[in-house]
Structures are given as C-alpha cells and as structure tokens.
C-alpha cells in the first residue's frame, strides 16, 4: 500500500542535510503546525457546508445554493462576514476571561489533532497513550465553556455554561469507558497500535456484542460531549437563546462555532479509529481479489470516509431528534449509560482474557 512516510522521510532527510538538528526540529514543527491550521480551516468550511446541505436534504429544501457552484462557497462567504464583523464585549463582562474563552476552545480542538492517524504512516505524534491523551485534553473544553458563560455577565450564558458543565463531566465517563472496551481488547492505548490491531478485521466486527454496545454508547456520549443536538442543552436556542455564546459575536463566536465542528470531527475520527479500523481497509477473510481491490483505495480515503460517515450520523441525530431536558439528560447518563458501560467493560475484559474475539 502507498504510504505517506516516503514524503515525510524525504523532507526530513533534506532538512537534516541542510540544517543542524535543532533547526530541523523547529522547521518540522512549524510545517506540522501550518498543516494542522490548514486542515483546521479546510475542515471547518467543509463541515459547515456539509451540515447545511445535510440539514437541507433532511428538511426537504435546497440549502445554500447561491455562492459558488451549488452553494459550495457559502461557508467561505460566511467566514468572511464573521471576520469583518465587530467583536463586541459587553460592558459588564469580565473582559479578560471573555476574550480568552474562545481561544481556549480553539486550542483544545487543535491539540486534539496531534495523535490522530489520518492515513497509513501519517500521524503527527504517535504517543503511547494516544487515547488517554484525547480523552484528557477534550475535557479541557468544558473550562472554556464555563469561562465564557461566567464572564459574559448574562443569565442565559450562565445557565448554559452550568448545564454544559454538568453534561460534559458526566458524559465523559461513559465515553471513556466505552473507549476502554476497545483498549482492553487491543491491550494498548496507542492509536497506531489500535489501528494495526484491526488489520484482520475492524473491532466492530470482531469484537462481538460488547464492542457494538460500546460503539453505541460512544456515539451517544460523544454527541453529548460535543454539545450537539439532541444534547445541545448548553445552547438550547429555544430556551436560552444561544446559551454560553449568547454574548459573542464576530470572530469570537466563529471560534466557538469552529471549535464545535472540530470537536465533532475529532470524536468521529476517534470513533472511526477505535471501532471502524481507522485507515485500515475493509477486508473479508480469504477473498484475495476483493481484499486487493480494497487495498488499492488509499488509506486516507478510508479514514476520511469512515469519519465523515460518523459525522453524518451525528448530523442526522441533530436534525431528527427533539432536545432532552436537563434532568432526563443526566438520568440517561447516570442511570442507564454508565451502569451499562461498566458492565460492558467487564464483559469486554472477560472476552479479552478468554480470547473470544476473532
């Protein structure tokens, strides 16, 4: 299979021969950073237009269709509008925290890109605790929301932030536990190891019922963790106007918006990596011809295909379900999802010990 490592090796060798090791490292980091920011911007635009087109498709309408071919440049125009808009700070707000909060949201989203394997041998940072890193860093997101809600000096914002705090902290538990099911079966927290362990079949297929349960719980929990409908209580526009970002406008609002979509992308990428084999192609047993054809499809296409499929599912949730109430939301987590995922992890552990998976 074709690999990105050739390009990386080539650049690395060329830099090493030209500069001393310190400069090489610095330049490589800058390249990686620029790549992440570029991917960030591109993904933001793509996801926004995707959301609008998916919602239009579900709602029997056309969606944006004026700017560019089929309205594909609409999100570019929106970004331009948000960039030139005045970013207001309310007079009663805590100015420092108010202006800091969107950047924290953004930084968290960016940090999460580090351990993700986008394709074969294409990973910024293959650290040995990749999954732990992702779940740890993504919980910082709640700080930015609480900060935004508290500093806005607005009751709607405050209520949205408080809801969000309760929600993210609770749903992190079952998201973590459902991830653990796969980690237990793989025996590793490293993302590249998890992907490699699925070379002979994705965990969703070879992990039997525990992994399927874990996958469903993971989907529910990450939808709640990213504040997407039907768990969008932090924003809840019919109740709290816009929740924690009621007072934000212009680019500061756009950063929150972008961070939300980035978080959706990240959690879907993690879901695709853990349960759907990451960049691993789809293989069926001994069908040599079929497997060969599947191998021929680039690994990045596999990864992004799976990720965007999960993103589509999450968007589908948003445009079909009504919103839960705050007490129902917490009941769902503490009374149903958490006990089920705890039992599930025992089951997965038993399966791993007995070697019952394929």
């Amino acid at each position, binding site marked *: 299979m074709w690999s990105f490592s050739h390009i990386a090796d080539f650049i690395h060798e060329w830099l090493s021969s030209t500069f001393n090791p310190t400069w090489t490292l610095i330049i490589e980091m800058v390249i990686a950073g620029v790549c992440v920011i570029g991917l960030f911007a591109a993904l933001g635009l793509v996801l926004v237009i995707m959301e609008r087109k998916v919602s239009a498709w579900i709602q029997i309408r056309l969606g944006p269709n004026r700017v560019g071919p089929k309205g594909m440049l609409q999100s570019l125009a929106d970004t331009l509008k948000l960039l030139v808009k005045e970013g207001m700070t309310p007079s009663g707000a805590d100015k420092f925290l108010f202006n800091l909060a969107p950047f924290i949201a953004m930084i968290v989203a960016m940090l999460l890109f580090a351990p993700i394997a986008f394709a074969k041998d294409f990973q910024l940072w293959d650290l040995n605790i990749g999954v732990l890193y992702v779940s740890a860093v993504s919980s910082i997101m709640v700080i930015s929301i609480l900060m935004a809600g508290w500093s806005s000096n607005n009751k709607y914002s405050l209520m949205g932030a408080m809801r969000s705090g309760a929600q993210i902290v609770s749903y992190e538990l079952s998201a973590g536990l459902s991830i653990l099911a796969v980690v237990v079966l793989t025996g590793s927290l490293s993302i590249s190891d998890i992907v490699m362990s699925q070379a002979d079949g994705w965990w969703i297929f070879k992990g039997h019922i525990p992994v399927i349960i874990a996958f469903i719980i993971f989907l529910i929990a990450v939808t709640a963790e990213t504040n997407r409908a039907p768990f969008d209580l932090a924003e809840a*526009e019919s*109740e709290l106007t816009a929740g924690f970002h009621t007072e934000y406008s212009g680019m500061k609002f756009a950063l929150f918006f972008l961070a939300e979509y980035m978080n959706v992308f990240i959690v879907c990428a993690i879901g695709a990596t853990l349960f759907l084999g990451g960049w691993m192609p789809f293989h069926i047993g001994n069908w040599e011809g079929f497997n060969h054809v599947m191998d021929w499809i680039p690994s990045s296409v596999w990864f992004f295909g799976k990720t965007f499929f999960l993103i589509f599912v999450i968007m589908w949730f948003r445009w079909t379900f009504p919103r839960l*109430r705050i007490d129902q939301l917490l009941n769902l987590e503490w009374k149903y999802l958490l006990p089920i995922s705890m039992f599930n992890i025992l089951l997965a552990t038993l399966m791993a010990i007995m070697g019952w998976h394929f």
Partner: protein
Amino acid sequence: MYRQTDIISDAQVSPQEGDLVINVGPQHPATHGVLHLVITLNGETIKKVEPHLGYIHRSIEKMCESLTYRQFIYVTSRMDYLSAHINNHACALCVEKGLQVEIPARAQVIRVLMDELTRIASHELWWGAMAMDLGAFTPFFHAFRERETINDIMEETCGARLTMNYMVPGGVMQDVHPNFQRRVKEFIQLYKRKIHEYDELVTGNIIFQNRMKGVGYLSPEDAVAYGCSGPVTRGSGVSSDIRKIYPYEIYDKLNFDEVLESGGDSFARYMIRIREMHESIKIIEQLIDNIPEGDFQAKTKAVLKLPKGEFYTRVETARGELGVYIVSEGGTTPYRIKFRSPGFSNLSVLDHIARGSKIGDLVAMMGTLDLVIPDIDR
C-alpha cells in the same frame, strides 16, 4: 380547585435571595412573538411565571368602534392571524344575528369548509413550531409542506394567503374558484399520504414522549376555573367544543367527534390537536362533494345598521372559544365591541401549570397552549 386568594397571594411573592429572575422575551426565540415572561427560577426549576402583555396591542376593539359593520371584520383577521377565517366568521355571525338575515346554504358550506381548512393549517403550523420549541427543526418544514397547499387553495379563492377577509355579513365575498373542489381533494390525498410521517417523526419519538408526558398537568377543575377553552380544556377531559355545544352554521348536521383526552398533560393537549386535524379532514370530506348550488351571499343593504341591543356569538377557533360581543346603539358603527379571545385565557394558566417544572418544560408547555400573541393582546 385553585382559590382566588391563592392567586393574589402568589402574585405578591417577591423574589428571594438566591432566586434567578430572567426575562424571556419580548425578543426571544421561544415565545413566537412579542410575549414577555418574567420567570423566577431556583436553579433550573421554575418558581413563578409572570406574563407581561401589551407589546403588540393595536387597540383592535377601539378601532372597530369607528368602522362600519362591513369594515370591522377585516381588522379582526389581524387578531389571531393563524385562524383569520374563523375570526371573520365569528364577526360575520354576530352581525348576521343582529340583522337577522338568512344565510344561503352554499355560503354556509363554503364557510365551514374554509374554517376547517384554516383549522388544519393552524394546527400544522402549531405542530411544526412546537417541535421547534423542543429543539427539533425538521418537523417545521414537513408541516409547512402541507400548510402551503392549504395556503395555495386560500390564495386561489380568497386572493390572500394569511389574512383572507373572505367572510362578509350575509355570506362569503365571492364564489369559490372553479379549481377549489379538485385542489381540496388533492390536499386530502396529500394529507392522508403524509400524516403518518408526523407520528413517525415526532409523536412516536421516545425523547418527545418523555418531554411531554406528565408535564404541565392541568386538572379539569383548573381548566374550567381559569376559563381555558379549545384543545387545552379538551386535553383535560372537559367537553368544550363550541361546534358541538352551541352549533353554528351546519355543524349540527355534520358527522364528527369532539376529541377528548383525559391526560391533562402536555401530551394530551398535543394528541388533541393531532386528532382534531383528522376530524377536520372528516368534515371536509363530507362537504366537498356536496356544496349546494345557489347564492354565495344573502342580499343585504349597502349600509348595514344593527338594531339597538347587544349581540354575542361564539365560534370554535383553532385555539378555542372566540366570543364576539357587539353593543349597538342603532347606528352604522358598533358602540362597543369586545372579543373574548381564547389565547388570553389559555395564557393565564401558564403560571399555574409551569410551577415546579424545569425551564425546558416551560417552552414545551407554551407550545401546547398554542399561544398566538396578537390574539392575546389584540
């Protein structure tokens, strides 16, 4: 039974330490208009809801006093703009009562057909808007798909889509469009083909049911005590359909059921409206092939003068009982007009049913009360 003294003493409760007082509206996505609610919260739990009215008060009653009996009907389209036909109908009925004119059979049937189409259109919009309050956006577009068909029918016959001004004293303004029957039948086909989507998308949804069931309970006694009407009382099991109790036009000859639910909660009120749409379709089906030939308007004088006296009629709008009370001094304009609008009484019950529930439930309850703010303020 809620005693009058309780209401007074509650109204004087001032916010305590730790309470959160928030203003929902007049500009707020949940209130569908310029309703202003001052909500006292304890955390997420509602302690008191205080509606502040008057943001869209246009003094329609006062305006009507300076308009003739032909003219004032058109102003009433702007009260409850979602059932404009039925408002006009109530006013026309009241004037006709004073004039003692006999309405031709054709006009009566056309009026009832239009009323029921309006009722369906109003309930469709309510359904979409209520789902939107609960955070589901898609139902709104599905509801509008059917509602647009009704609006097209209205446009063809009445020349307007929202404020039709089609009812005049003595009948209807002009005859129905030649396409009317065909298009109404097409609409019935469309409705029957699509109505199951409503149940699949919203009614059967587990999240929706959890949000609605057992929320906003209104006992039959309270429903009567607060003067509620329409689907709000019928959701509590109190029979209140004016079309059945005080039949007007040809409703007493039609075969339809008064929809009753005994739950008293938001879900019961929701089901009432969904089932009422089926009943309206039933009425339309009975009438659409049997529009009698004849005049569409009775012969009336050019200048109408009501005899000295007081006249009152009531009709069942999509939201409940609309009463029109005209005091005449014998002139060409009414001395005094009073509208008893259903939305006002239904809103007054909000504080009672919302106490102790969560803020998310408040928007759901407002949705099931089906508030139209211009109807409340007039």
